[in-house]
């Protein structure tokens, strides 16, 4: 296969979709994996076959992967560490008398 052929097949690849499944009514959709499909309708149909063969879901979301934007793992310290020293955001931070009820 020459370079041209490789480029041709690469560009012909169906887009990648991220799949989210609601496992039952009342719960939120959860990411389960990804798959390739030509369009959103096919992505839902394929997701049904690939990710819900054993009643894993009652609802499917599909999002084309290129539309997902993610935080950078390298920024984790700057983003999440500041929450560490704000213990006063948790109810257990406060020392209140034992006789206090319903709080």
């Amino acid at each position, binding site marked *: 296969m020459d370079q041209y052929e490789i480029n041709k097949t690469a560009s012909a690849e*169906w887009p990648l979709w991220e799949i989210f499944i609601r496992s039952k009514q009342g719960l939120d959709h959860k990411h389960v*994996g990804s*798959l390739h499909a*030509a*369009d959103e309708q096919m992505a839902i149909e394929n997701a049904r076959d*690939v990710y819900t063969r*054993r009643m894993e879901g009652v609802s499917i979301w599909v999002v084309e992967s290129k539309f997902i934007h993610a935080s950078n793992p390298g920024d984790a310290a700057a983003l999440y560490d500041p929450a560490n020293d704000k213990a006063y955001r948790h109810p257990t931070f406060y020392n209140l008398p034992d006789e206090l009820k319903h709080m």
Partner: protein
Amino acid sequence: MERNFEEVFQDKIDKEIKIEPKDWMPEKYRQTLIRQISQHAHSEIVGMLPEGNWITRAPNLRRKAILLAKVQDEAGHGLYLYSAAETLGISRDEMYNQLHSGKAKYSSIFNYPTLTWADMGAIGWLVDGAAIMNQVPLCRSSFGPYARAMVRVCKEESFHQRQGFEILLTLSNGTEAQHRMAQDALNRWWWPSVMMFGPKDDESPNTIQSMRWKIKRFTNDELRQKFIDICTEQVKILGLTIPDKDLKWNEVTGHYDFGTIDWDEFWQVVQGNGPCNKERLETRKKAWEEGAWVREAATAYAEKRKNRAATKAA
């Protein structure tokens, strides 16, 4: 600097913190995972062929529905794994290219033919049994997407082994001819299944690094021994005999001793000289090439719909 990244990485692994696709990882870790996961995905896809061979000839409707569901699961497992591998930066088409060109391998077991219905039983019990033994520890693999895919695979794989055992049990307790057929299948599938765990530890150069990176949790020989110990007990229920005259309980080790593995055969099949290597690869290539018009038509249709929607909106 590089060394520093590598220390942080190893530290995470040692603390059992999972590695996710966007995290820094050594190039060799990425390449090892791409090789292992794609090889695993290819095995699921090629693995559909020996069993697909019997779908139309299953002995009854119940067996046919079960076999169809099993083969469909294998397609699903291949897809979970391909998508896990893609998070490492390799495209699906590139993986297919590697399979079709022979650059990527798949499990050698699928290069053996399925001659009788009893082979469906032997594959379920032994081949899926060996696969499960390999896969359960992979649910704790250090790479997040791989581990998550394996959790799903393992959950589904359990019925595959049970249905196989049931087929063999039914045949073994059937007519004399059926019993012979079951024993014949066991005779042919036993050694290739034992070889599924790969080369011996001292001939498996990647094992040490893979264990250190927690991609693998047990060595080939550890898993192989466990498989043999379990099967040697299970075969008693089937009323069949494992074709290894050296199989013997060892009081000292607490394991079964077993006969010499024919590594010559193993390497022959790995190198492409097994009974069905050519046929399997050609079938996959044919499916890919003859499916090209479907992929193109779907792309064209999606394009047309998109354009139509755009025109309507304007």
